[in-house]
């Protein structure tokens, strides 16, 4: 704090000192963009480094050197790596991810439909998981160190400790096979009604909810507990405020930032973690699409999916960071 007076003498610090909120947010935005570029290089490089060749796989028995060379030329694989990267990146920036090698369809079109499906599944899981996690977190604070708290903790820990495909198969075994009350596979079609759609995705949704629930619930519990034990909550009590007012007016604004943060992180996990669950439940989303593409070495599709997953992840993390910054009164109201 003591060096604020000195700031005027250092021009570089001036903007940061005067608008700490704005400068921090700008910093996060710039960092996210840089990160996204770095990830695009990694994805392109990684795919490039994969063993095996599309042309050979595609042609199979008839892979004469001439035919392979023809296909490579047709797909532009004879150009240098750097040129191909920038062509790809330039296209991606305009929303054009090229054509699928396998189906010759536009990748963007395909991804668009699939992404919608994935977001629907992840979003539906989030709508259930977020309020549930926060309620359970508050419940376990209320029953701190007593039976309900312990049960909530153990069950949610167990859920987070099992891999999502395992939970998925367990749910299929019990609810689809043994009791027969749920649908499997969870394949949705374009002309399905909303209710039917929800019914179909019940199991994958449940799997995703179980996977992200524990983390959010435990963080909510920790955030509320740390706020409740702070000196200003004692002040509120010694002012004779009612418990409700103390919690809403004094605890909530301070507990919100860490909770928002963990919720955003888990939303990111939901969107990305959906890959495995989609494969298990044969759900036509991005994850399924990506896994299929990997098996036939359909590189434009793999790259597009990778980049979109990365972008969603970075975006949600950035939103979490920015919300946490905005929730901090010290940054909102500089000295």
């Amino acid at each position, binding site marked *: 704090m003591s060096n604020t007076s000195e700031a005027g003498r250092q021009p570089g610090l001036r903007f940061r000192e005067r608008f700490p909120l704005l400068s921090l947010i700008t910093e996060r935005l710039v960092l996210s963009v840089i990160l996204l570029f770095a990830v695009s290089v990694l994805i392109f490089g990684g795919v490039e480094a994969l063993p095996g060749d599309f042309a050979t796989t595609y042609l199979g028995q008839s892979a004469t050197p001439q035919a392979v060379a023809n296909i490579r030329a047709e797909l532009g694989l004879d150009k240098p790596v750097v040129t191909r990267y920038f062509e790809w990146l330039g296209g991606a920036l305009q929303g054009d991810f090229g054509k699928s090698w396998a189906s010759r369809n536009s990748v963007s079109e395909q991804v668009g439909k699939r992404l919608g499906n994935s977001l629907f599944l992840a979003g539906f899981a989030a709508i259930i998981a977020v309020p549930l996690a926060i309620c359970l977190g508050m419940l376990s604070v209320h029953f701190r160190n007593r039976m309900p708290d312990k049960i909530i903790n153990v069950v949610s820990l167990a859920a987070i400790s099992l891999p999502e495909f395992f939970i998925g198969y367990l749910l299929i075994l019990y609810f689809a096979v043994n009791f027969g009350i749920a649908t499997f596979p969870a394949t949705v079609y374009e002309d399905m009604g909303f209710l039917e759609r929800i019914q179909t995705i019940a199991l994958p949704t449940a799997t995703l909810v179980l996977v992200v629930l524990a983390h959010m619930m435990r963080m909510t519990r920790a955030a509320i507990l740390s706020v409740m034990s702070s000196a*200003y909550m004692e002040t509120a009590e*010694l002012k*004779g405020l009612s418990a409700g*007012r103390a919690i809403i007016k004094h605890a909530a604004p*301070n507990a919100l930032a860490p909770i928002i943060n963990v919720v955003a992180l888990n939303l990111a996990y939901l969107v990305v973690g959906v890959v495995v669950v989609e494969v298990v439940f044969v759900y036509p989303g991005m994850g399924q699409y990506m896994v299929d593409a990997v098996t036939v070495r359909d590189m434009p599709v793999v790259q597009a999916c990778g980049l979109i997953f990365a972008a969603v992840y970075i975006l949600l993390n950035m939103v979490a960071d920015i919300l946490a910054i905005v929730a901090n009164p010290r940054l909102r109201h500089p000295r």
Partner: protein
Amino acid sequence: MPDTSSSLLSIRNLKIEATSYPPGEPPKRITIVDGVSLDLQKGKVLGLIGESGAGKSTIGLSALAYGRGGAEITGGEVNLNGTNILALGKDGIRKLRGAKVCYVAQSAAAAFNPAHKLGDQVIEASVKHGLMSKDEARKRALYLFKVLGLPNPETFGDRYPHQVSGGQLQRAMTAMALCSNPELIVFDEPTTALDVTTQIDVLAAIKHAIEETHTAALYITHDLAVVAQISDDIMVLRHGKMVEYGSVKHIIETPSEDYTRALVNVRQEMRHEAPDQSKALLKVDNVSAQYSNGFKVLHNVSLHLCKGQTLAIVGESGSGKSTLARVITGLLPPSEGQITFEGKPLTPTLKKRSRDELRRIQLIYQMADTAMNPRQTVRDIIGRPLTFYYGLRGAAKTARVKELLDQIEMSNGFIDRYPAELSGGQKQRVAIARALAAKPELILCDEPTSALDPLVAEGILKLLMKLQEEQQLSYVFITHDIAIVRAIADSVAVMHRGKLVRFGAKSQALSPPFDDYTDLLLKSVPEMEIGWLEKVLTTRRMESAGN
């Protein structure tokens, strides 16, 4: 004993207990307050004084029918205007808190909610209890901000807690307590966390506000000199029991208990200043230092310390006194100037110092707690420098550790204890033994007693003085407490905002003519004298009138 019937607050046979959970043992009941009774008349101030664990805050909070951290009121009565508030239901107690009885915490910085404006928090209780409308409450807050001498009282309420200084926050908290026109305020060490020069302003503001509003107060502190300025009566507490209870005059001038006498006489001079201060062991020559971001924290400091003597460096927080110690240890290399030790230049950076250079300068920290590994026994803690500097192992090491324990006046039985099993004073003694183990010539003491109770601190200071006599040790003693400086120093350096404002032999540095800062600093230290605060404030007013 005053007449009970007319008392505002009358506590009878109060007993407060808590359950403690010692690691590895079954939980046990401990008594925090045992059979304490007191009376407080309207508009009067009662000081509760004692060391940590004396139960003074717990008694204070009982006036709000509140038990902190699992403390339970298990016996006795707390009568406010003749009503036993312990018998009130949950709702009755809630209506009392913040309306009739208010609380001012030690750390206002933690007690204010960081998410809301100060003004809203100050008026909240008054408005929510339906005592006044929002506008009336705002008017009263403005009046109180003025009474408490807060800067820009009109806009002060629009600020957030992090936007104002610690002293201002403490005054804002007082305003918050006074806002609802309570009959009683409990002040829980309201000035302990502040620098002396700030403390005096806050103290004066609180005193003025209490007089202006005719509110009664319980004033809790461990500093007898502070409570003497503000109270009408004083109760001395120890281990949850009353030691002595009487008027300020009685307690300060004619205490009847030994414990009270020890509190009154704490910090008498322990060491006469050494006459010869010319041969320097440590010489700091024109040293400046800055942080890596270019912020300059020390400006051209020059001073020296002679062998076998104590140099006290005094100043408030942010004055650069600890930074100077970091520069001497090499943790923060100087950007300009040089430090010489026994006539030879000292390597500027810690990492490049030879083992012998390291050995000769040792450190004792303010928080012995955080300076020790909690998973090591006393044997390991003291033994580590013995192995590192002297290669001692096994029986030879144990023998030397026992010898060192003897020097710090602790028995051999402590050798296998962990830090958690030691009291605050014992921990600091172990830290001293660890420093001694290296057989250093210079020990840098960074506020080693400021976290300790006065009598425990006194024991540590006496030990340091004894060791100095026996082993010709030199100390650089960093403190904000002028009384300690008077008690132990040979020479004194006064620091302010990274500059050395005064340096010399104690007799010379602490006598007039003073520079402005040293004058302010010395005048701000509370003295165990009734009416001291008024005297200082009068001189200040006269001086400012003269200007």
